[in-house]
């Protein structure tokens, strides 16, 4: 299949470009926070990465809960003044978010990109992989991202600012975020990979961070997007997804009942794409707008990626055939099959 016409290939190219820019682009944009692109990126681009071009919006949210709103509440100050920085960050986030919607996860996020590349590596190594997780498990995991958003991004930082909990909980999500370790390691910096024994809270947080990082890396080899499923950024996106210009749209047909290829293709295991027959907008809370469901939908225009009202990519039987063949060839070529082929060849020579 011509890579120029392959949406997955185009997306991979965009992802790698975004990874390079957001992890190393500080050399272009500048070193200081004021030099960064937005300061409220809707993707996990880490501020601890000194070479990065931007930082994720969850960082200022935690900081503002702790130092602005929390302190305003504790000090009996003007609450509106305490809330103002958060509103400015939210507005900046929304300006960007409206532009690409949840595609920030599927096309831009450095951690999402690395998880996908690791999964490709697992496939190439011939590891046993799980294409789809059990729907019951997916359902049980879904609330975790909301809990992380409410507690670690807003709750504990606010309580720390008020003074009800230790200041060690001022930025708890950053302290456990695998992107912090990943992006700093990517720049050759090991300072974020540590176990902090200075307090019990920091010990637990650093232990969680290191373990979660290792777990994410290893799981990504066999399970698609393991951390994305619990990422609070995904939850934040879900809140505002109706505002985004890019949408996943479905025009269900009777054939959809017997197919289900879209759900199988989905890296987030959203079965609702398959079962939903009423709603036109199927940008579900876990959707990352990667477009794989559209690629693997065999019926003309049943699934579409639309920007505002304009279709930018639509399901097409001809594309589906080519894409399926390309996928089959891609999956066939791995280390295990190469070794098996070599063994067969050696056996044939011996005979």
């Amino acid at each position: 299949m011509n890579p120029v016409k392959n949406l997955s290939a185009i997306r991979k190219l965009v992802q790698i470009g975004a990874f390079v820019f957001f992890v190393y682009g500080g050399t272009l944009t500048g070193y200081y926070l004021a030099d960064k692109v937005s300061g409220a990126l809707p993707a996990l681009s880490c501020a601890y990465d000194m070479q990065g071009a931007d930082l994720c919006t969850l960082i200022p949210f935690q900081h503002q809960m702790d130092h602005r709103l929390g302190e305003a509440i504790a000090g009996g100050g003007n609450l509106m003044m305490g809330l103002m920085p958060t509103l400015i960050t939210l507005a900046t986030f929304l300006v960007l978010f409206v532009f690409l919607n949840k595609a920030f996860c599927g096309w831009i996020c450095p951690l999402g990109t690395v998880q996908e590349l690791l999964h490709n590596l697992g496939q190439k190594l011939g590891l046993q992989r799980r294409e789809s997780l059990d729907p019951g498990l997916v359902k049980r995991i879904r609330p975790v991202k909301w809990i992380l958003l409410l507690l670690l991004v807003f709750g504990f930082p606010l309580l720390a600012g008020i003074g009800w909990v230790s200041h060690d909980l001022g930025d708890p999500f950053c302290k456990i975020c695998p992107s912090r370790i990943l992006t700093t390691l990517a720049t050759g910096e090991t300072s974020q990979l540590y176990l902090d024994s200075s307090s019990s809270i920091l010990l637990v947080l650093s232990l969680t961070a290191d373990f979660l990082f290792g777990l994410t890396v290893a799981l990504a080899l066999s399970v698609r997007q393991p951390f994305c499923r619990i990422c609070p950024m995904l939850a934040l996106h879900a809140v505002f997804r109706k505002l985004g210009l890019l949408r996943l749209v479905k025009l269900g047909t009777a054939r959809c009942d017997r197919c289900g290829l879209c759900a199988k293709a989905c890296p987030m295991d959203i079965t609702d794409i398959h079962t939903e027959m009423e709603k036109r907008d199927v940008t579900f809370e876990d959707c990352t707008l990667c477009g794989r469901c559209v690629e693997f939908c065999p019926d003309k225009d049943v699934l579409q990626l639309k920007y505002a009202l304009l279709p930018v990519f639509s399901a097409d039987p001809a594309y589906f055939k080519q894409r399926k063949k390309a996928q089959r060839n891609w999956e066939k070529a791995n280390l295990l099959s190469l070794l098996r082929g070599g063994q067969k060849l050696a056996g044939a020579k011996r005979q």
Partner: protein
Amino acid sequence: MNTDIQSAVSILMLTLLMQSPAVVVQAAAGSGPGSTNNSATGQQQSHRRAPKKFRLENSEGAVMRLWKPDLSTTALTAEQGSITLPRTGVDNYHALVVEKDWGYLKESLIRYQYMHGKPSGHSTSELTAVEKTTFEIVPDPVPREHQHYRSNDSWNFLLRFRGAPAAQVPVALETSNGSRLNGVSDSNGLVTLRIPDDFSRLDAEERDPRTAEFSVSAEMADAGIIYQTRLSAEYRVDPGRWQSLGLGVFITGTGLVAGGVLGHRAGRSA
């Protein structure tokens, strides 16, 4: 260093040291002679926005200016040997510059100080790029927002004379804990200095909130005039004392194994 410069060193008059907030407890037993103990996190937090006060010795006749992030300046005066930085309402680094002209000797002191307020909309690179005094030492870079100088860290400093890099100039780093080390600027005017780990050891591996002051100084002569400059800043204890990379790698390894086992099981059940 020639004899003229040596004699100039002996009459160096200005010193600039940050004064600890009133609530800050003096260094705990066993801490270095020049270190302070910001022991309570809450206290530290409440003083983030408090006015910054500096002790300035021999300030008679000195000119003091505060450079804001937008590069505007405000004249300051010393009262009873101390300078208080007025709140500017603007977030980001500001530069406190003190100059004193002795005729044959021109002294300057610089300190980049983070102040809190509304976003300035200006990058610190604008503040470091502008010429603030004839001979100056510029951190390259200044620790980024929420970053700090810490013992055992290496940082670059740029020596600039009349806006151009000053090459092959001897530089000294001194700390309030009593350490001293020397360096020489390279052909680009840059010198890399490692802040000494000179805080005394505490018994327990707890977070150590002590801070101390360091200064980087240099001098050079031009057209019969000696120029001395000094950059001062606060530094903290190396977190490596209570953060372990080895254990971090071990825990990550545990996570890798756990993920491998879980992934393998998931693959088999698929």
